[in-house]
């Protein structure tokens, strides 16, 4: 529109323009930052603001309005991403910094039994509780989840029942965890009386939260198995159920295991349902079917709720261990998915 008679295209800013403006924006913000002694975070925020104004303005002058809007949006989107990631970085930093001093061999191997005041306590009982409750939850939800996946992919196909199940599984992923906990509580209370608390209730609640994830991932993985493999198996006279257990499931095994591990990592940090149904105790309890059982997240919460310096300290230590557990599980899941998936598909 504004192009001269000679130019067919608009003039463009050179490729290095954003980098140049970025450096200059930081420099411009750096001057008052040095003088007024701002923190690095304030400096970065000021620099970003300068960039958000300067870059579109320059572009407006040289390239025109539309390009300027484009540059503004690009800058905003990069900024938004940086802002969105910052809580994660900050949180991880805080957890490691506050948690490390609390974690030592005693912290990992002692329970809170008979620990008074500032004495060294530990998370051993919580680790045992988390391990048992999560394992039991996996034992309940993995078979149901995978078999449902088989039903949806191999038997249900487009049938009405299968569509309803798929839809409700999706809806189920959104059940608040506290509701799952209340459900388990209501179940136990109805069966065993109002004061009954047990670890197995926590497992029931967690499996309700795990099942949708397991169904989704096993369904998705089994859909990836090429029909050729199934047909080849049928052609050899192998019955359908043998085809599924011998061909389809092994082929998609890596993906399914990845899904299961991710599901476990999701529920291992659940607090609310366990708080309600498994309760909390200071000692080690290895019986899932009787008595209260502390898990790691509940331990963190009750230490936090105690509002004492040593309680906060223990809470941070527990948080570090919990985050490490979750991250390791995540990593293991990705590695399983990465390493075994292609090798199996032949």
């Amino acid at each position: 529109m504004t192009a001269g008679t000679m130019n067919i295209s608009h003039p463009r800013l050179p490729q290095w323009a954003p980098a140049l403006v970025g450096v200059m924006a930081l420099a411009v913000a750096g001057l008052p930052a040095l003088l007024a002694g701002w923190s690095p975070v304030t400096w970065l925020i000021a620099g970003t603001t300068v960039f958000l104004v300067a870059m579109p303005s320059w572009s407006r002058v040289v390239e025109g309005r539309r390009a300027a809007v484009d540059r503004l949006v690009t800058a905003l989107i990069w900024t938004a991403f940086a802002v969105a990631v910052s809580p994660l970085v900050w949180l991880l930093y805080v957890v490691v910094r506050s948690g490390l001093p609390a974690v030592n061999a005693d912290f990992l191997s002692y329970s809170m039994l008979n620990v008074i005041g500032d004495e060294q306590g530990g998370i051993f009982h919580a680790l045992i509780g988390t391990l048992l409750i999560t394992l039991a939850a996996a034992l309940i939800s993995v078979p149901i989840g995978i078999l449902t996946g088989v039903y949806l992919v191999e038997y249900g196909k487009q049938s009405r029942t299968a569509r309803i199940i798929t839809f409700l599984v999706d809806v189920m992923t959104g059940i608040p965890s506290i509701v799952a906990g209340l459900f388990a509580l209501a179940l136990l209370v109805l069966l065993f009386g109002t004061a009954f608390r047990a670890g197995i209730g926590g497992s029931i609640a967690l499996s309700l939260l795990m099942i949708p994830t397991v169904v989704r991932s096993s369904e998705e993985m089994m859909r990836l198995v090429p029909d050729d493999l199934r047909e080849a198996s049928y052609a050899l006279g192998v019955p359908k159920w043998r085809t599924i257990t011998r061909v389809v499931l092994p082929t998609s095994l890596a993906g399914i295991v990845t899904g299961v591990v991710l599901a476990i990592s999701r529920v291992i940090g659940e607090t609310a349902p366990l708080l309600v149904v498994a309760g909390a105790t200071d000692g080690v309890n290895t019986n899932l079917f009787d008595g209260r059982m502390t898990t790691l997240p509940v331990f963190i919460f009750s230490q936090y709720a105690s509002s004492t310096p040593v309680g906060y300290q223990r809470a941070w230590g527990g948080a570090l261990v919990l985050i490490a557990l979750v991250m390791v599980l995540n990593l293991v899941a990705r590695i399983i998915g990465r390493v075994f998936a292609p090798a199996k598909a032949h």
Partner: protein
Amino acid sequence: MTATASQERTESTGPSPPSRRGDRVFSGTVRTAGLTILLALVAVFVFLAIEGWAGLTSDAATYAPFSSFGSYIVPLMVSTLLASAIALVVAVPFAIAVALFISHYAPRRLAAALGYVIDLLAAVPSVVFGLWGGRYLAAYLQPAHVWLHDHLGILPILGDPSPNGRSLFTAGIVLAIMIMPIMTAISREVFLQTPLLHEEAALALGATRWEMIRYAVFPYSRSGMLAGIMLGLGRALGETMAVAMVLATTPTTTLNVIATASPPTIAANIALNYKEATPERQSLLIATGLVLFVVTFLVNFAARWVAGRSTRRMAR
């Protein structure tokens, strides 16, 4: 089409006599597993209703300091809605921007890794978010409370600011961080499903990248984005620990989201009071849980319905 074709094929594989029973047992087993899930959902509703029924019509003392179920749950409901609204207002722009960043802006080689970073945010347990929110974020956001009160204090929701930042506002921010990953994940997937031809056509007509996104990507993914937002809302309504740990709670009624103390959300109220609950109080808490379940179920139901109308793949 392929599905129906293969179905016909497998069902008409008439003669395979030795395997008939194994097949029947196996298909029965997997069908039972599927039906178990339906049964579980019904059971959730039924058990909550059975145990919570008494909580709806107890004697007045149970609802102290209120006198009936209605007046007990209204402040909780208001807090729940306010916190979720704050979370949505903050999280939606970020979620869409981050999804766009990963689908259209980030260097292609980095995109997958950056998406993984956002997924990590979803992996952080809620209790850790609560710990961080209560011990660090609240203090950092306290000046923001004062600023909001000074500049926008005429709004009834921005009354006297909290001295320590442990307000509904801070809880809403923590919720926003927690629900952003799910909204990002779903928006990202619908953005990536925009037909490449539409995008290339827009660019070929001389559109800038933003114009291409506005006129080709957004119209195509509107319902997917809406579904993502509603799923985020569902999460925010039911999130417990972050609110329970950040918010300083009292059973008063206030609309002031930056107040020193607010009524807890429904979910947080359950978590905070389960311990000293008498059987009547326990029924009451279960009854509020039933309300929460019905509300979140409806929100999620609507979200999946909206999502299902566009594509099925993006449900996750």
